[in-house]
């Protein structure tokens, strides 16, 4: 691994008027590392994720990202054009609800190909071949390539959304509850797939989830949030097996044992 982080976040805060979205969040993310952000709903996980992915501008604090040329760039000082370019090339964003991240009225192939066309790919045959390749990597049959995502099950839609995000070979992927709303067997397969892809591609990822099992499976490191603040962070196994903050202890002990 390289000796420099991919993303440096320092004292990031977001206020909605007088209400706190997230407050004073500081961490580094290293290449190839998966960081889970856990906490109950309303704890500021999604606000944090939206700030990091520049979908929201924070009230204060900085985040700098190491571009492909090795230079750190301050995210909130980049122009909108640069941010949007980053968003569709070097980054991915997997939404909880696939309908938010997919174009529901165009075919699966075009959904995967859109990013390629956005960065200037103009060869139909090559775009289609790449789409076929990515559909097979996320276990969607090739003959579904011309179907609209509307005709897909929830799990397939989520896998399609992942393919659509990974097609340009991003280095950092943001995931907002990637397994939310899926039944457990589908969740298990999706997690398996994600784990494989993250390892194969050396992706760094920030995964927001309220599901501690997802965090344990996917992430090496985790942050526990409560009321907009980070109450505990550390290696996933350490935090889950030996929770120190009272809130984390409560969270871990709240998992239903089957």
């Amino acid at each position: 691994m390289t000796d420099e982080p991919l993303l440096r976040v320092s004292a990031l805060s977001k206020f909605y008027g007088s209400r706190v979205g997230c407050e004073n969040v500081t961490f580094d993310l290293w290449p190839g590392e998966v960081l889970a952000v856990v906490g109950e709903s309303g704890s500021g996980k999604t606000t944090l994720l939206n700030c990091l992915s520049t979908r929201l501008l924070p009230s204060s604090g900085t985040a700098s990202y190491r571009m492909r040329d090795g230079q750190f760039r301050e995210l909130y000082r980049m122009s909108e054009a640069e941010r949007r370019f980053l968003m569709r090339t070097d980054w991915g964003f997997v939404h909880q609800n696939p309908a938010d991240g997919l174009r529901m009225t165009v075919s699966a192939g075009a959904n995967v190909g859109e990013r390629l066309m956005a960065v200037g790919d103009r060869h139909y045959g090559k775009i289609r071949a790449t789409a076929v390749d990515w559909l097979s990597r996320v276990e969607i049959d090739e003959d579904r390539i011309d179907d609209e995502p509307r005709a897909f099950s929830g799990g397939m839609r989520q896998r399609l959304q992942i393919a659509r995000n990974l097609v340009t070979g991003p280095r950092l992927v943001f995931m907002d509850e990637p397994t939310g709303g899926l039944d457990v067997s589908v969740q298990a397969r999706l997690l398996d797939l994600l784990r494989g892809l993250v390892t194969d591609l050396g992706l760094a990822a920030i995964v927001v989830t309220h599901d501690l099992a997802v965090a344990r499976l996917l992430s090496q490191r985790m942050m526990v949030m409560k009321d907009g603040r980070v109450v505990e962070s550390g290696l996933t196994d350490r935090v889950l097996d030996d929770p120190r903050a009272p809130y984390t202890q409560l969270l871990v002990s709240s998992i239903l044992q089957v």
Partner: protein
Amino acid sequence: MTDIATYNFAYLDEQTKRMIRRAILKGIAIPGYQVPFASREMPMPYGWGTGGVQVTASIIGPDDVLKVIDQGADDTTNAVSIRAFFKKVANVAVTTETAKATIIQTRHRIPEHPLTSGQVLVYQVPIPEPLRFLEPRETETRKMHALEEYGLMHVKLYEDIARHGRIATTYAYPVKVEGRYVMDPSPTPKFDNPKMHRSPALQLFGAGREKRIYALPPFTDVVSLDFEDHPFEVQTFDQPCALCAAENVYLDEVILDDHGGHMFVCSDTDHCEKRREQGHRGHLAPETPLALEKTEPAQ
């Protein structure tokens, strides 16, 4: 008392014309960019060419010769009414001959006769935003234009090829202007797209309901979007015009009876009549050429 005494020249008041001319100038300065303007109520319903009429009214002068076509024809309701409108409110000469006109207002065709320097082609545009059916939010499409994010436009063409094996868009075929803005050429058949490229005439587009004006100055690069392995192609026809035997022109299918009889004739009526006057005969042409009034002089 004459009819025109109750109107300002060319119907619109001078302040309105000034405002529209400003929008036109801005449009010319930024080829392909949609300039918002304060579209006025016109004495015709939206969708009948209110945008084109306002543009024409703002640029027309007493010496201009106006031609109005609707799908290539000079004699359809829309074309006849708009021609009569300007004859009445601006007292200008009107014509059906492409070569003699200084301003040609058009609904969905570009005349077959090549346009020359000094002519102005005014398009009536129903929906100026090429990205509209791909991205419904106007705030977002404006941002996409501003940031030159046009990947989505190719998604539409990709879908065409995936579904039909070729690019099936036949009209309102998106073009890129001067390597910058993606523009909707109004619902002209894609057959006419190559005529826009480096045309010596000034081309103005007015969308009345959508309140947008855009423009192509003379000799502007207009490139139809395509894929490397599915290049842009225009429509071709198996047979020549049934009346004037013209080839390589855009043809309309005309149903002749209810037993499946049909013929293909030039959509550009002026072009077709000109050719018949010159003695060209198609296989369904009547024996004696039609005598048609060509230029109606100013009153």
